[in-house]
């Protein structure tokens, strides 16, 4: 709708009588996002713990120490880490009201995310060819579930970033644009933070 911009500009005027000020002065959306992320800690915590419990329960030749390809995973971890940088640059462009750069950085972030997911697909395929199916062992079930959940989170993030970038192009972001970018950024960084844990706990520490 064309009047989004109008709406944004007249925002302050409405606030005077809308009594929408929050008690703490903090944004509802941001508070909600942080609570959601706090909640997600217990989700990924459960998955990581299950993996930890089961990582040694597999047949002799299909355990973590046999299938890991550390150089490859390191590279894809690096890609995801760099996507956090591009995300933060998108947020900082958004706060400067620089739509063009915001879109560029959001797209680059989505691209890096997609690269990471592609790497994960490749990794899963390789493991599967080596004989490590989802149902092969306790190790494989818990590994695929943990990294799969993370992969789904990344994928959802990519879809959100691309949608947001499109909505910025058409000027269709309802509410505060910079804050929306920031919220998506929080989600994205959280997914990255989870991978920081997974990379070390799952891949680098031998079972």
């Amino acid at each position, binding site marked *: 709708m064309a009047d989004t911009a109008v709406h944004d500009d007249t925002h302050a005027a409405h606030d005077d009588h809308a009594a929408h000020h929050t008690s703490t002065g903090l944004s509802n959306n941001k508070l*909600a996002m942080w609570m959601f992320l706090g909640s997600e800690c217990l989700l990924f915590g459960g998955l990581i713990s299950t993996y930890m419990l089961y990582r040694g329960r597999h047949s002799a030749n299909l355990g973590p120490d046999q299938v890991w390809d550390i150089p490859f995973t390191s590279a894809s971890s690096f890609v995801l880490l760099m996507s956090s940088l591009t995300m933060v*640059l998108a947020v900082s462009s958004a706060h400067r009201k620089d739509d063009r750069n915001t879109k560029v950085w959001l797209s680059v972030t989505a691209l890096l995310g997609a690269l990471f997911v592609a790497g994960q697909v490749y990794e899963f395929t390789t493991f599967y060819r080596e004989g490590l199916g989802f149902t092969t062992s306790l190790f494989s079930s818990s590994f695929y579930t943990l990294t799969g959940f993370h992969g789904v989170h990344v994928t959802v993030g990519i879809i959100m970033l691309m949608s947001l970038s499109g909505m910025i192009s058409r000027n269709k972001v309802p509410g505060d644009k910079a804050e929306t970018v920031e919220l998506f950024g929080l989600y994205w960084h959280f997914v990255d933070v989870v991978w920081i844990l997974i990379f070390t706990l799952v891949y680098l520490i031998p079972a």
Partner: protein
Amino acid sequence: MSSATDTHSEHDTESHGLSDLGYIKIAIFLAVITAVEVVFSYTQEQLGAAFLPGLLILMGVKFFMVLLYFMHLKFDSKLFSLMFYIGMGLAVGCYAVFLATMHFFHS
């Protein structure tokens, strides 16, 4: 609805953390730590007892760097930190106790 209406008009970089250059520096730092981690994983035998704590510390540094700087937790309201750290604390606490009762830390 009302949610979005309260955000503040002054979105200067100061209240929102570092400059772009600062973020790039942090990203480089994180990349270096990741490299050190990978080196760690290839030199487990030389490192001996320092291996596991070393890796965990490096992981923690990365974790909090992203949390505090990229996610602005260092510059934002303490309430946001509280929400996240309660969840994180409960997760670490409960699951550590769970793994302990399963004798995970004995091996």
